[in-house]
């Protein structure tokens, strides 16, 4: 067993769990929460870029872990979604759409951020999109954890992503990629922009894959 590491922030995380959980936590539940924290600290160690600090949970992850797949109480979900919306950042130059070819490469690429990956820079990361979503119809190897994104732009009536008519769909899609918790508190999708997994240029390429009428997704 690895040596017990000191982990000053764990106390805060445990408190957060108690503070967030509704209905009121039973005493043995609180004890179990504390034992869980102790177990996690005692079981993991740093390896490569993946430090034990990755076990620290923010309010959203703590609440969604506690819920174990059940829906959060509405007020709690709304608070998480609102905080996520406040964290949204729009593209700095106002451009939402990049190159769908680059987007397809990112969507295919499932690498990045593991302890065997050397760099934490967005350039070293893929989007892992096909792991969970159907996207371009030619790719038969796709996951089903997320909804199908085949014909994403076409089904939403986007013929010109730059047009005012497309604005709502374009912004919704950017927000989803940036921080999926903005519209769904316990979304299973990584927060690609918010967590610094992909940079603006990469997100624009994924936007193009989904929304460009020339993208194979919309054929």
């Amino acid at each position, binding site marked *: 067993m690895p040596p017990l590491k000191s982990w000053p922030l764990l106390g805060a995380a445990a408190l957060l769990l108690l503070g967030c959980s509704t209905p009121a936590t039973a005493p043995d539940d609180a004890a179990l929460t504390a034992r869980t924290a102790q177990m996690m600290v005692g079981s993991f160690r740093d390896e490569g870029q993946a430090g034990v600090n990755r076990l620290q949970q923010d309010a959203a992850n703590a609440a969604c872990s506690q819920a174990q797949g059940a829906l959060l109480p509405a007020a709690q979900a709304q608070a998480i979604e609102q905080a996520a919306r406040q964290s949204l950042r729009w593209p700095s130059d106002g451009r939402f759409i990049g190159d769908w070819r680059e987007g397809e490469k990112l969507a295919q690429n*499932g*690498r990045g951020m593991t302890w065997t990956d050397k760099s934490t820079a967005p350039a070293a990361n893929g989007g892992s999109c*096909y*792991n969970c979503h159907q996207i371009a119809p030619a790719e038969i190897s796709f996951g089903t954890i997320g909804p199908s994104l085949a014909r994403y732009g076409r089904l939403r009536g986007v013929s010109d992503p730059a047009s005012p008519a497309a604005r709502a769909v374009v912004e919704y899609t950017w927000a989803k990629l940036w921080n999926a918790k903005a519209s769904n508190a316990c979304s299973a999708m990584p927060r690609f922009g918010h967590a610094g997994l992909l940079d603006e240029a990469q997100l624009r390429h994924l936007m193009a894959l989904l929304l460009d009428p020339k993208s194979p997704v919309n054929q």
Partner: protein
Amino acid sequence: MHTRRDLLNRSAQLAGMLASLGLWPGLAQAQAQAGAYNAAAFEAKSLAEVMKALGGSAPVESKDVSLIGPDIAENGAVVPVAAATTLPGVKCLLLLVEKNPAMLAAVFEPSEAVETHIGTRVKMSQSSPVFAVAMLADGRVLYAVKEIKVTLGGCGG
């Protein structure tokens, strides 16, 4: 109590001993052939080059030969394939993967005591046509081909 491994070890030792005395045909033959490994055929980049290295004529597609394999391989590291033919007088059965760095995967030389339907598992670096080739005693070289798709699987990380 004897384990399976003990028994196998023992039989291996026995076989080795017999072979060293020249009494165990299987191994003796393999040893005799050690110099006969056709390196040129296994380095060839095209079907024509493979056939040249093996001294065969130009191959012709035939319904009497089959390549048995899955339509899709979940992992290219292990793809089950077999070469089969119903024709008599088979000298060699070959398995080839067109898009591998070297095309030829395996050459089988079955005797009359073995059915001409032989299977193994190959690696495929990408989706590719896979060939089964039968070289016959009358000099004909016949083939069957099937496209096997290799998919990207797992989390990809």
